[in-house]
């Protein structure tokens, strides 16, 4: 069995950073990253980007050395991705914030509203309902992060946690301030409006959860395989016939329901911003499905059936 030699150069300065000899031909990029980490302990594998070309795409951890277009002396280029943080950590932090913050406004913790309102509760029952829905939504997200989602990437750049938390926590505070305000005005059409909103909200929450379960079942535990999702026996997944990313569709629906329930402009604004972001993500996912699978169903749209 012939052994390979691997040299790793810096992608920008082309300096020789590491030389590994007697590398097994069936070694994976992941194993090479571990070896590189030993000689440069500050660059743990998650922040290494190894590529064949200084400006090329990163190689995957699963790629095997002998299947790559390299000679017996392989030259790789390294780029530092910066400090990394795990997706799970980011998700847990960004979702716990809104849960706690909303409850602080709901219970009218001191220094938010006028002191005569401290620890009072709203007299409108829709405010209690809204609190339950909002809290349920974020508890669901936290549980899904811990038990349902199977992440393709382990980590993301550290600065994302600050960006994401500012977004989620900031909007949660802004919405919660008005919904739980002593001068809150309940929806114009009263009970009818609230009931309809609640139905939409619950329908979309169940739908969103069904999609997450369906996506999880596409992927065996510990793997990073990608397959086309199809409708299952669960009627909530039948939307896969028309949409590539129905989890975003249902998420939009949930927030539209919440907007209708609370009749609060900041909530509408949050829904709009979220919709724009999810549309960008959905279009990207849709495009990568089309690129990866020749037989991708042509009827599907990224996020809204037939429209977007």
């Amino acid at each position, binding site marked *: 069995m012939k052994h390979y030699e691997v040299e790793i150069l810096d992608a920008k300065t082309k300096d020789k950073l590491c030389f590994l000899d007697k590398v097994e031909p069936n070694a994976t990029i992941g194993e090479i990253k571990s070896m590189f980490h030993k000689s440069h302990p500050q660059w743990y594998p998650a922040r290494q980007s190894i590529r064949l070309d200084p400006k090329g795409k990163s190689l995957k951890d699963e790629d095997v050395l002998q299947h790559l277009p390299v000679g017996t002396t392989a030259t790789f280029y390294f780029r530092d991705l910066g400090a990394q943080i795990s997706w799970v950590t980011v998700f847990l932090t960004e979702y716990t914030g809104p849960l706690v913050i909303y409850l602080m406004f709901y219970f009218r913790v001191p220094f938010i509203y006028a002191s005569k309102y401290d620890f009072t509760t709203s007299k409108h029952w829709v405010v209690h309902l809204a609190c339950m829905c909002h809290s349920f939504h974020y508890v669901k997200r936290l549980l899904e992060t811990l038990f349902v989602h199977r992440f393709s990437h382990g980590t993301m750049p550290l600065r994302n946690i600050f960006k994401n938390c500012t977004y989620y926590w900031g909007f949660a505070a802004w919405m919660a301030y*008005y919904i739980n*305000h002593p*001068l*809150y005005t309940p929806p*114009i059409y009263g009970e009818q409006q609230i009931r309809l909103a609640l139905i939409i909200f619950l329908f979309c929450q169940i739908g969103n959860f069904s999609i997450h379960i369906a996506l999880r079942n596409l992927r065996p535990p510990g793997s990073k395989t990608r397959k086309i999702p199809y409708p299952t026996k669960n009627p909530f997944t039948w939307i896969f016939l028309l949409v590539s990313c129905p989890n975003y569709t249902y998420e939009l629906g949930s927030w539209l329901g919440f907007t209708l329930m609370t*009749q*609060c*402009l*900041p909530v509408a604004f949050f829904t709009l911003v979220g919709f724009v972001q999810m549309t960008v993500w959905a279009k990207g996912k849709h495009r990568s499905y089309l690129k990866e699978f020749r037989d991708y169903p042509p009827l599907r749209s990224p996020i809204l059936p037939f429209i977007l």
Partner: protein
Amino acid sequence: MASSEEDGTVEEKENNNKKRTKSALVTAWLTFYNIAMTAGWLVLAITMMRFYIQRGTHKGLYRSIARTLKFFQTFALVEVGHCAIGIVKTSVIVNGVQVCSRIFMVWFVTNSIRQISTCIICQKIQNEESVILFLVVWTVMEISRYSYYTFSLLHHLPYFIKWARYNFFIVLYPLGVAGELLTIYAALPFVRRSGMYSMRLPNKYNVSFDYYYCLIIVMLSYIPLFPQLYLHMLRQRRRVLHGEVIVEKDE
């Protein structure tokens, strides 16, 4: 076989012709746009100078040029479109921030708060002066900027225009910012008293907006934004005037 090959090259030539006419149209439009804007700001500058020479005071000067200023400053939104569709190489964000801050000043500060611009019995004369300050700064900067673009497009760029465009800002940017900030600051008591553009609870949208605090946030936003724009211009200056190659930080 031969005929299909011919078709292929004919199509290629047609595509090249289409690309050439498109870029000729684009250049024609950009040239026209930049000449128009240069002319517009020149008119503003001349009107301002005439007013001051004839009346000897700057009171009422803003009112005399308000409509022209609003027209040309608002029209600059077109430039953001240019960046967005890629016919101009500036980033949409850099250009967008600059145009938005100008439009904000013109429509939401100086326009709405007429007392600042037309105050005759004015205890705080500095209100007026800050307006004149930024008006003069804007006029000089825009004339040099648009004439720079115009001459570049016509491939006949006199060195002094390039020099002006990339050196005036060193002094004028901070002066302009000072004028803008002083004007917003002077506007605050009027905003507070009149409660303009503000919305209070309770209302059916369950939202509130206080223009007074919004203005304060706008003033604070100058702190992170202005240095970035200034440094960006300094980097451009080094590149254009001294041919330095700037290595941008990798994301």
